[in-house]
């Protein structure tokens, strides 16, 4: 436990120091929220039950933040640390692997928590968006989603073979996924083929739950099907991660 706390402090420091993480995964969702929110601030979305566009966008940016931080950021950090030998070096220290992994994931979950709070505060200040009714449901949904995306992040990080390709490969997955799942715009207007793809993405189901809670005042239990799909993706990620995770560089 002491080692976990020590490593968590280290991971938080590393997170704050990393410009790539700070900008692409942490600031970008807020930047998009401010830009797109300012553009559509008076609009309503008919296809989504006539909700305010900014409320719809806030939930979308929370989803985008979740995959940017927990999935993309984590995957890239893991590949870089594995390929430059930091993970290998850590294995020669007395720091137990579970304490390390737990501290790393907790640091990324903490970053996501700060992101969510910042987005909600921005929404309140800039666009007058009220606080959600069911905070408990929202927190639970966000936690489950973020953990599933962490599992998928570790899985994809384990499959990527080189540090050079890491950012490109991860961006090629999560940016289209964010669009297709409807983080930025309502997916109802998308062509059928794209909606088929959207129907398999875990982010689609995460957004259904988050929007249900934030826009329609539902509880998390109102979405058992979406929750099941999300958890199934998380389980697949965890299995792949456990099977293919490497401490040593894969240069050979």
């Amino acid at each position, binding site marked *: 436990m002491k080692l976990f706390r020590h490593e968590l402090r280290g991971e938080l*420091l590393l997170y704050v120091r990393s410009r790539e993480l700070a900008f692409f995964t942490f600031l970008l969702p807020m930047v998009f929220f401010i830009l797109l929110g300012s553009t559509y601030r008076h609009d309503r979305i008919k296809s989504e039950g006539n909700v305010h566009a900014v409320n719809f966008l806030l939930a979308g940016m929370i989803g985008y933040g979740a995959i940017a931080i927990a999935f993309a950021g984590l995957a890239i950090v893991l590949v870089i640390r594995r390929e430059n030998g930091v993970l290998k*070096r850590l294995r*020669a220290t*007395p720091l137990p692997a579970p304490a390390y992994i737990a501290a790393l994931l907790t640091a990324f979950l903490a970053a996501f928590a700060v992101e969510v709070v910042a987005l909600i505060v921005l929404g309140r200040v800039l666009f007058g968006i009220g606080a959600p009714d069911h905070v408990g449901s929202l927190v639970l949904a966000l936690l489950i989603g973020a953990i599933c995306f962490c599992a998928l992040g570790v899985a994809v990080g384990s499959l990527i073979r080189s540090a050079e390709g890491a950012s490109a490969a991860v961006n090629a997955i999560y940016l289209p996924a964010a669009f297709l799942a409807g983080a930025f715009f309502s997916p109802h207007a998308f062509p059928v083929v794209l909606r088929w793809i959207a129907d398999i993405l875990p982010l689609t189901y995460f957004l259904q739950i988050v929007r249900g809670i934030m826009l329609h005042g539902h509880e998390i239990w109102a979405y058992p099907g979406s929750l099941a799909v999300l958890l199934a993706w998380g389980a697949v990620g965890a299995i792949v991660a456990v099977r293919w995770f490497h401490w040593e560089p894969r240069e050979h």
Partner: protein
Amino acid sequence: MLEVASDSTARERPESLQSPTVSSVSVRDLRKSYGDLEAVRGISFEIQRGEVFGLLGPNGAGKTTTVEILEGYRKRDAGEVEVLGVDPADAGGEWRERIGVVLQSSAMYETLTVAESLRLFAGYYTSPRPVDEVVELVGLKDKRDVVVRRLSGGQRRRLDLGLGLVGDPELIFLDEPTTGFDPHARRQAWDTLRSLRNLGKTILLTTHYLDEAEHLADRVAVLGRGEIVAAGPPSELIGETPATEIRYRENGREVLLETDNPTEVLHELTSKAVAENRELEGLVVTRPTLEDIYLQLTRDTEDE
């Protein structure tokens, strides 16, 4: 009475070598293959406490494979291995408290400062060496608060060493600690390694620089194609090869004498020359270096 004991055992070796010895590392008939390639083919050696042991050999000789088995990274195919009394294949955190590992490629967090990096790693051990002490030991006192990204190659390598030392280990593995260094940086690194040795640490050093082994190691084993082709103190390895060469010119012709008794031969030569009032032009006496022996040994194995 005292003279009796002093002769054969004293030499210049550290005291721990003379006392009834405790092995830090013990390897017997170690084997490891990758597919068809036999990387390590039945090697055996012991490293005593407080000893600096050099594992020498060209690239691909099996040095890193051997060291990584001892560090617990790789599983062996056959043989017995004990490191600090434990089989590294199933060693735990308590064992890792007692070893320090410096890998061949320097691995660290680019965005932390020197002191932050050391503090982070120090926290993994129950009784670490104080960070400021380590900073001083590896000669990075004036770079203490500099971000790793801004360090030079030699400075990074010294931080690497510091990260391997911060847990205050009994046994330190150094895999090619000075590869890629300029001569000045190498001298500095050697000074650091000597100070470690003076702290009583046991060190296993791999290198393909012979002068490094000659300067630092109490004993060396030369690896060629996965086998130990020679072993012993560097001075004895050099002593094993017979000839000291004496060269000079006589009537414009090069004369080369190879001898096991250079003092005697040289004395004869020079007294004769002095008596005849002659100059031995271009007189050179060469003792074979470890380099010569090494080249010969590793060439032999490559010819197989």
